């Protein structure tokens, strides 16, 4: 754990007497196999909570992740939101001061996920899908769900309309590690009825070596979420340039269904597209379709199965694959 993690731990320890259930430790453990002849194991542990009277209102989170995947060269199985490089990684570790009055809604500093689009870990991990969207898996010339920032983030506005700005340095884990430099992210979000609509922009450094990828990496995107009666629709569309002379566009649309008659079963589906324009043969045009179900088998243990079919150029080892995973979670409040 680096100095940042130790600092946040000190903040948590010095925060004084805590209110009931102000500190929680959570663990999530998972294992999976795919017909791409890939197996994976993963575990995440996070400590989160609210500081005591001396730092009233301050929230903190410290998260560590370990993941291992049997095949590193091909495929993105199990890469939804955490790295699978076989080592312990410090993930989101930050302190946040949320406010329920005034224009400033929250101020956050530390190590956090890049706040571009649909970006929180729980938006992508353990909801059933076992692969990140093509536009959010690090090796496909777009963005990565394992992008992390060292910096500060502020959210202003009212609950149903917020503007967020982040200024930071890249602190990535996983496959795509951006070069050192300054990163700016700007995001606006509005909630209208059951719709949540967002628009994001990022200006950062490329994750490829500067001998190959010159210039800045810049992307803009829109994201939409809607939910009613147990049916969630959501999606993102992005466009931009991973570095000089190239461009990437793409997006995904998800449907997640959990109706009363389905009991412990949640069904999910995804269609997605990625187009990376570059000099042949480095360009990439691909589509992918995913369908499956997650079943809560006992308390917090669930099993997921997903059938993935890729059209266009192939990034998976096999064009059609069946992914199966099991996940268990626990939580202790102090």
């Amino acid at each position, binding site marked *: 754990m680096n100095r940042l993690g130790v600092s946040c731990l000190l903040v948590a320890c010095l925060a004084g007497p805590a209110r009931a259930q102000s500190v*929680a430790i*959570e663990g999530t453990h998972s294992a999976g196999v795919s017909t791409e002849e890939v197996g994976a194991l993963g575990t995440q542990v996070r400590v*989160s909570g609210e500081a005591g009277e001396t730092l009233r209102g301050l929230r903190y989170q410290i998260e560590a992740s370990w993941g291992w995947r049997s095949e590193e060269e091909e495929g993105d199985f199990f890469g939804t939101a955490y790295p699978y490089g076989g080592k312990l990684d410090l993930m989101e570790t930050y302190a946040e001061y949320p406010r*329920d009055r005034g224009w400033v809604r929250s101020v956050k500093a530390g190590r956090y996920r890049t706040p571009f689009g649909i970006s929180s870990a729980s938006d992508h991990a353990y909801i059933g899908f076992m692969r990140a969207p093509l536009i959010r898996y690090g090796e496909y010339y777009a963005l990565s769900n394992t992008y992390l920032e060292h910096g500060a983030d502020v959210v202003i506005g009212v609950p149903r309309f917020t503007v967020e700005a982040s200024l930071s340095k890249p602190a990535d884990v996983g496959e795509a590690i951006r070069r050192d430099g300054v990163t700016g992210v700007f995001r606006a*979000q509005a909630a209208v009825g059951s719709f949540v609509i967002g628009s994001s922009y990022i200006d950062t450094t490329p994750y490829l070596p500067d001998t190959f990828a010159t210039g800045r990496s810049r992307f803009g995107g829109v994201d939409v979420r809607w939910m009613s009666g147990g049916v969630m629709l959501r999606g993102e569309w992005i466009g931009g340039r991973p570095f000089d002379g190239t461009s990437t566009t793409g997006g995904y649309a998800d449907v997640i269904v959990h109706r009363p008659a389905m009991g412990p079963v949640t069904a999910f589906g995804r269609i997605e597209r990625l187009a990376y324009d570059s000099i042949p043969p480095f360009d990439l045009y691909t589509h992918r379709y995913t369908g499956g179900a997650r079943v809560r088998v006992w308390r*917090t243990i669930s099993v997921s199965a997903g059938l993935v079919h890729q059209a266009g150029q192939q990034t998976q080892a096999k064009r059609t694959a069946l992914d199966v995973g099991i996940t268990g979670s626990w939580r202790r409040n102090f």
Partner: protein
Amino acid sequence: MSLPLVVRAQAAAVVAVALLGTAHAGKAAGADVVNGRVRLAGAPQKDAVVWLSGTPSGPVVPRRIVLDQRNMAFLPHVLGVPVGTRVEMPNNDRVFHNVFSFKDGKRFDLGLYPVGTSKFVTFDQPGLSRIFCNIHPTMAAYVMAVDSSLVGVSDADGKLEIAGARPGRYEYHAWRPGAEIISGSLTVSAGREIEVAWP
């Protein structure tokens, strides 16, 4: 109240109701407050819902009832409310939650709503509602809606407060997570603490 989990025959055998010597009745302005303790096998039992019926109650001041979402958890873990109560469910967390109840009691799905906003659910029928988030499997809460305004939930020390109970003879019911409802009778009198216990 016609709850399917009530095991009335069990009540007399398994519930000890004791009248202890501490005086708290009449503490709250405008309403009588009965203090009590809840125990399981002699140890304090938290998150137990106890409600009284059978005797006209005193005035109960309407309260703002909140089931909060903070730090990937519902707070409190257990709510006990009179039927007809409108419960506020704010999202005071860092992320979206999908709050729903599909199994028993009040069935609803609140969908996604942003941090800092609230939605409301009126529990208009008696019964136990199990509240979950479809995104975060460790998030769970219970709301027990009862046909009585005399209801309280025990804290971490097993202590309980029920507002509005005037002295008299009552039928009581008690529930805790993982157990069935137990019932019996007790007497509320000024300066006495009630005790409800599972063996």
